[in-house]
């Protein structure tokens, strides 16, 4: 066990994977000599050399397209998209190619690429350095979508991603890259996909969150405990595959659900959670399902503290949900 920040845990995960498997390599913009603009790939170039730590030209189309070609040949590329806001030039390669290669080839061409990318708000990044586009990818059949909320999960889920057989979009909540530290198991630590984790147990309301919002929600949950409202907080971790069991079990227990994410609400990931609840746990529900999310606007710079769900907003929603008839 070592005390690490989230970005350090990502870095350790990459070291671990590259040391144990020569087929793992890293490519992206500024990942080599610069060690990544957030330093997630720091030190890799020195240890593994230019053949395995590739500074690419400025083209996300190229990064993902080339990674796909490498994966087809049996390598395990880990592509970095510098900010997820810049993933869109690669959207065609991801949605039309990466997600569909195994299927369209009848299983002949599995295509296992991991795409890592910092995402989310809270660092004063404005419109184009703050977005949370997970819903686009969760809606894309064939992709797995993973979002860690703490250093141990970051390393453990990343190692699972790198050793998975399917394409994985690995979204790193950059707001807590350094703000959150924690004990991280050394070595080949793996956290399985498809399992949510219970951050706080409670019986009054279920709160579902992921990424940086887990911490905001935890603050809200803790504050409400002093008011006598005991919310259960579940960190989804794995959006695809989703731990539906955990979702439904919690709602069946509490009868109330609050969903928290940074992305805009309309057609956001929370909509799917609410829909599953409305389809499969309706008879348990004692109150409307509430979403606390970013607003349906682009991401604003000066007002990000008001745009993003904050402790007060989440607490307000939990309180209202707990009290609803």
């Amino acid at each position, binding site marked *: 066990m070592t005390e690490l920040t989230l970005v350090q845990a990502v870095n350790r995960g990459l070291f671990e994977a590259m040391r144990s498997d020569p087929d793992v390599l890293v490519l992206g913009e500024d990942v080599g000599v610069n060690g990544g603009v957030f330093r997630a790939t720091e030190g890799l170039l020195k240890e593994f050399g230019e053949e395995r730590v590739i500074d690419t030209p400025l083209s996300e189309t190229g990064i993902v397209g080339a990674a796909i070609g490498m994966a*087809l040949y049996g390598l395990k590329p880990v592509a970095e998209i510098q900010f997820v806001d810049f993933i869109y030039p690669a959207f065609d390669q991801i949605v039309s190619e990466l997600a569909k290669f195994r299927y369209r080839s009848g299983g002949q061409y599995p295509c296992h690429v991991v795409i890592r990318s910092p995402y989310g708000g809270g660092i004063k990044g404005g419109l184009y350095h703050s977005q949370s586009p997970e819903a686009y990818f969760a809606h894309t059949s*064939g992709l797995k979508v993973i979002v860690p909320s703490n250093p141990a999960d970051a390393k453990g889920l990343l190692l699972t991603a790198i050793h998975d057989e399917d394409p994985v979009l690995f979204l790193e909540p950059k707001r807590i890259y350094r703000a959150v530290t924690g004990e991280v198991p050394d070595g080949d630590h793996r956290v399985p996909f498809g399992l949510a984790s219970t951050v706080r147990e409670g019986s009054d309301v279920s709160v579902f969150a992921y990424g940086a919002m887990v911490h905001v929600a935890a603050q809200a949950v803790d504050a409400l405990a002093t008011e006598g409202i005991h919310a259960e907080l579940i960190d989804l971790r794995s959006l695809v595959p989703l731990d539906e069991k955990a979702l439904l079990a919690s709602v069946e227990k509490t009868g109330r659900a609050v969903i928290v994410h940074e992305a805009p609400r309309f057609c956001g990931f929370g909509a799917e959670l609410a829909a599953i609840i409305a389809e499969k746990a309706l008879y348990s529900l004692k109150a409307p399902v509430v979403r606390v999310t970013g607003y349906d606007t682009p991401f604003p710079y000066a007002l990000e503290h008001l745009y993003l769900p904050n402790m007060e907003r989440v607490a307000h929603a939990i309180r209202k949900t707990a009290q609803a008839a």
Partner: protein
Amino acid sequence: MAEPTPSTENEPVAVASRIPSTDLLGVYRMMVTSRVVDERCLTLQRQGRIGFYVPMQGQEAAQVACAWALSPEDWIFPAYRELGVALTRGIPLKLLLDQFIGNAGDAMKGRQMPNHYGYRAFRFVTASSPVGTQIVQAVGTAMAARRKGEPIVTVTFFGDGTTSSNDFHSGLNFAGVVQAPTIFFCQNNQWAISLPREKQTRSETLAAKGVAYGVPGVVVDGTDVHAVYAAVVQARERALAGGGPTLIEAQVYRLGPHSTSDDPRRYRSDAELNQWKAKDPIARLKSELLADGQLTEEADRDLWESTKSEVSKALAAAEAMPPVDPRTMFDDVFARLSPQLEEQRLSFEELPSPNPVRT
């Protein structure tokens, strides 16, 4: 429309790399097979026996000669029009017809439109429809092969229109920077559906686009099997020697429609078509073979006839295959069925009419 430029640019064609005379009849056979399959498939589509088809008539010399110059270890990244490449690679006709039908024998499991196939055993990567995406993938595979120390090249096929795609730009650029052992084989068939070559780009030739990436560009007459073969051999040797990628522009003409959904009379003249029909690559190679005595008119007739009956046989076998099993619909999304897909498959199997007619 520009006529094909019979000369090459930048790179002189070494006479040594003409197709060996003993191979020529084999090349011709492949071209004839391509033509026969192509024509049969157009008929099958009209008869409703296959749903759609993309013909490649006029591009036989370019495709077969290019594929002929490759090693079976080389990886091929095709677009949707590469029948001649597929056949030359040795992919059995029956397998291709299974794909066109989308039956239980289809390696793609009936998931893709006709012409969108691939066969791992043949190092022929499954094509998609969005144009160009394969170009940059081929570069990634070349980088991977080099990293693994395997002396192969990757070859990617695409059309004139596809030079405008994002993936052409990123693929050529990456290849230039990393000196990837990739051959970019552009079949300039003069049209991207209804858009003529000169409205696609103001670049003088498509091969000239290599300049933007420090990648050597070569123009060849794509109706001349020797010119094509020579250019590919040379590009391949350079790539394997660490000299990096090459962009080859094979100037050809799409004699047929863009696809069975297209009517080319809407946008191009008979005069243009006829001008190019006169340069039919099959007729051209036939003349050469007749001239040097490797072929007689009679042997040629036999060849066409035997090819046709081979195609008929393969077709009968393919049409006898059962349809694809509906439950396979949920496979291969992921390596293993996710809980969510398992649930969907279950609900699918439990539907009141498990195999309802199309609405």
